[in-house]
C-alpha cells in the first residue's frame, strides 16, 4: 500500500488510494484534511501555534496558521473543492508533568486551540479529534473513507 510519511514540521497531500501517516505526535498536532468527493487528502504535522510570533518562519509546515493554508492550496491543486473539505485532528499532548505549568509545557493545548481557530476561519468543520493527554500518538489517515487510525504505546489503538 502506498503510504506517504510526513515528518515533524512537514506536510503532504495525496489522492486515494494513497494514504498519509505521521509518527510520534506529542504536543505537535496532526491536521488531516480531505475532500470526500474527489478523495483528496492532506496531512500537516505542526509544532507551533503561530508563525507571526516567530523569528524563523520560513518553514510553513511548522506553524498551525501557515500549514493549514499551504495544505489547502496543495489539495486544491489536486482537484479538492475548498467548500467540501473537512478535518480530523490528533495530538496536542503534554508529555511532561511539572509542578507549576509554564507556557512551554502547555504548548500542546495552545497548538490545538490555534488549529481549531484557523480551521474555523477557513470554515472547515472538524469531524473528529483525539487531543490532549500525556502520551504520544502515531496516526495513519486514509482519504478514501476519511478514517483516521490512531496508535499509542499505552492507550491502545482506535479509529475516528
Amino acid at each position: 500500500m502506498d503510504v506517504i510519511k510526513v515528518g515533524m514540521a512537514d506536510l503532504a497531500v495525496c489522492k486515494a488510494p494513497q494514504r498519509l501517516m505521521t509518527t510520534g505526535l506529542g504536543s505537535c498536532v496532526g491536521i488531516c484534511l480531505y475532500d470526500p468527493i474527489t478523495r483528496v487528502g492532506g496531512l500537516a504535522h505542526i509544532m507551533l501555534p503561530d508563525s507571526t510570533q516567530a523569528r524563523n518562519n520560513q518553514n510553513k509546515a511548522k506553524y498551525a496558521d501557515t500549514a493549514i493554508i499551504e495544505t489547502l492550496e496543495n489539495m486544491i491543486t489536486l482537484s479538492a473543492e475548498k467548500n467540501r473539505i473537512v478535518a480530523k485532528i490528533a495530538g496536542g499532548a503534554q508529555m511532561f508533568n511539572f509542578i507549576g505549568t509554564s507556557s512551554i509545557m502547555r504548548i500542546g493545548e495552545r497548538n490545538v486551540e490555534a488549529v481549531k481557530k484557523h480551521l474555523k476561519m477557513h470554515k472547515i468543520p472538524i469531524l473528529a479529534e483525539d487531543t490532549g493527554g500525556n502520551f504520544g500518538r502515531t496516526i495513519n489517515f486514509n482519504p478514501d473513507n476519511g478514517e483516521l487510525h490512531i496508535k499509542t504505546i499505552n492507550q491502545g489503538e482506535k479509529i475516528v
Partner: protein
Amino acid sequence: MDFEQLNTMQKDALKEIGNIGAGNAATALSTMLNKKIKMSVPNIFILPFSQVLELMGGAETLVAGGYLQVDGTAPMSILFVIPEESLKLFLNILLGKKEISDFTLDEMDISALKEVTNILAGSYLTALSSLTNIEFNPSVPALAFDMVGAILGNVLQLYGEVSDHALVIESVFLEEEKEVKGHFFLLPEPGSLEIMLRELGVVF
C-alpha cells in the same frame, strides 16, 4: 544564532564542556551507586531535528526521557534520553533489577531515572558554570516514557522557534563489561548560546 553556524573552535569549546561534564557525572554516579561507573568521551552531534530522530531509531522508538529547565542568565532545556533496550540494562546497573516488564516503569525506576537526569544535568552545568562563571538554576526533573518523537517534539518546540538544529551529547556509561548508551540534549534558549560562548572567550 543557530548551532549550525558555529565554527570549529566554538564546537570544540562545547565538546570540552561535554568531556568535563562526563567526568563529573561518572564520579557522581559512582558515588551514588557505590560502583565503578565510567563514562566514555562523549560524541557531540549538531543535527537537524529530523536526523535527531533517526539517531534515536525513528520517531516511534520507545524511550525514557528525563527533562529539566534551567533558569538564569543563559536559560536552557536539558533532556536525557535512553532507549528501551538500554533502559533495561541501565536499570540493572542502577537498581540491580533483572528485567523490567514491558512498557511500564515503577515508582522506583522513575525516581532513579529522575535522579540520574539530575546528576547528569548537574555535572554538565557545573562544568559549564566553572568555565563561564554563569550561574545555572536547574528545575526538578520530569520523566516521560513514550515515543521518542513525541518526547523530543515537546521539548524542541520552544526551541524550534529559533532553530532547526540541536546539540546532542552521546554519552556511553560503562560498568564492568556492561555498556549503556544515552543521549543528552542541551537546548539553549534564544540568546543563551551567544552568552555562553562569549563567556567562554570564543568570540564570533
